[in-house]
């Protein structure tokens, strides 16, 4: 029974007739839709894990004649590629999820913000979008969606930076509060959800919240699409029930020599072999937007850390000092330790700096650099120093 917790699920990529779901939700009261999503305990699948039903209810309670639904398809976290597959395989379900959100909160306009690296998907998306709009016409619904492209900035996956970008500006995150449900795109109440989250809302409306809740654990209901890469014979995209331990995951996907798994990408946590057993993949343990990278014993964790820091140094928007300078100093710092210009105690100073960044940075980027940094340095200190 070694793989009892690694259970394949087929909700996201299941081909369904979206118009049946649309027909059903159009007749529902907006609040009943919010209630159903709330009851499912669905949490955002982009990584942050905010309860989707709560987000929708907040949006529905705002008094505004203009509200927006935004689909965050700016999938940029290193090691995450599942949204691309979802948009490629079942784009109609993504639009359908946006229409459900629109009905729930009373929005008439939606945007899909697609990362520039996925521009090749545009012809297919437009074709599917035309079909979607025809269906909306048939049902006398005036919700319309447009697709906007990013231009190679990781930070635009941060929701308020994404709004800035759609508004035609530099993608610099805003201060929060106000949160998007109060003041989002163009200053209007906005529901922003990840691609995968939106598709789950379709399946919840189709099969009911109770069906969704049968899967997963108390803190992490349902299933999740994982992007598996690194040292694995089974790299790819897998929808799995939530609640498995890293150990169970490694038994299924490892190459027999896995020494660490980076859960949640460059902004996530590094789990070393000694913690595989006790670490649950989910909101009660290590959360993930889906990125699962396996490293075997041939890999230098210094190289892994260096690669991540190089990434953050380039992708920090530069707006706030803790993140802009912090990323640069962490990178320079580990290089100095590696060269022997600084002694190993200096790593403790760098860990403190990463903690300061967590508290003082304006957005999730600077706040989460310390996740990978702290967990790699703590568990693989010798590899960083020698």
């Amino acid at each position: 029974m070694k793989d009892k917790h690694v259970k394949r699920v087929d909700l996201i990529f299941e081909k369904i007739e979206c118009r049946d779901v649309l027909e059903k939700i159009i007749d529902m009261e907006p609040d009943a839709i919010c209630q159903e999503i709330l009851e499912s305990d669905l949490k955002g699948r982009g990584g942050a894990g905010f309860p989707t039903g709560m987000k929708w209810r907040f949006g529905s309670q705002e008094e505004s004649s203009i509200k927006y639904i935004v689909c965050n398809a700016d999938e940029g976290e290193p090691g995450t590629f599942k949204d691309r597959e979802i948009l490629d395989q079942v784009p109609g379900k993504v639009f359908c999820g946006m229409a459900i959100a629109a009905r729930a909160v009373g929005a008439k306009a939606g945007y899909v913000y697609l990362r520039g690296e996925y521009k090749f998907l545009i012809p297919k998306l437009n074709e599917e979008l035309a079909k979607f709009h025809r269906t909306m016409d048939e049902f006398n619904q005036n919700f319309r969606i447009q697709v906007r492209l990013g231009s190679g900035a990781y930070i635009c996956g941060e929701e308020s930076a994404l709004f800035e970008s759609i508004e035609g500006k530099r993608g610099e995150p805003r201060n929060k509060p106000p949160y998007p449900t109060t003041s989002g795109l163009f200053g209007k109440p906005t529901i922003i959800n990840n691609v995968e989250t939106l598709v789950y809302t379709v399946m919840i409306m189709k099969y009911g919240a109770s069906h969704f809740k049968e899967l997963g654990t108390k803190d992490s209901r349902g299933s999740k699409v994982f992007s598996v890469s690194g040292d694995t014979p089974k790299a790819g995209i897998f929808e799995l029930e939530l609640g498995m331990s890293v150990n169970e995951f490694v038994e299924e996907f490892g190459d027999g020599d896995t020494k660490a798994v980076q859960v949640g990408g460059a902004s996530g946590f590094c789990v070393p072999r000694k913690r595989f057993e006790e670490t649950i993949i989910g909101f009660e343990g290590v959360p993930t937007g889906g990125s699962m990278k396996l490293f075997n014993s041939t890999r230098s964790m210094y190289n892994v850390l260096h690669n991540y820091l190089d990434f953050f140094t380039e992708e920090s928007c530069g707006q706030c000092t803790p993140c802009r300078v912090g990323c640069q100093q962490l990178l320079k710092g580990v290089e100095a330790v590696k060269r022997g210009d600084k002694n190993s105690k200096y790593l403790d100073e760098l860990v403190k700096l990463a903690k300061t960044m967590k508290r003082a940075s304006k957005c999730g980027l600077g706040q989460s650099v310390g996740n990978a940094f702290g967990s790699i340095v703590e568990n693989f200190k010798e590899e960083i120093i020698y």
Partner: protein
Amino acid sequence: METIIENELVRELANKHGRTRESLIPILQDLVVQYRFLSKKDMVDVARELDISAADVFGTATFYTFLDTEVRGKYIIRICKTISCAMKGKNEILSTIEDILKIKLGETSSDRKFSLLEANCIGWCHKAPAMLINDTPYTELTPEKVTEILREYIKIQ
């Protein structure tokens, strides 16, 4: 009075996307499709067309990696340098391309046909190493495969 020389493409793109601030990025993106980079003149013309300051246009463009403000070739090669691709032989692919095109990372060929750049994660980690040539992804690259791909691009006049 300074004479303003009509920039027809910019005008056309403003007609297509609109003249509000939210039209700025789609206009710049289309200019990049046309010329592979944004010239100072085009940015000034966009500013005039949208009635915003040229500094705003420049400031916005320079924020985004894909809105290049330096001259680029007709085909921009972006090799992913993030961890999975780095682990699966990205450097070997890079040096193969450098050898074939006789340009180094960051450079543009003298005939302005190719530019060779690195990119952060492009979302093909399970099929690493990967690269984009303009908008087209190429995955599971080997030196042989990348040689074959480039041969096809070199043939295009």
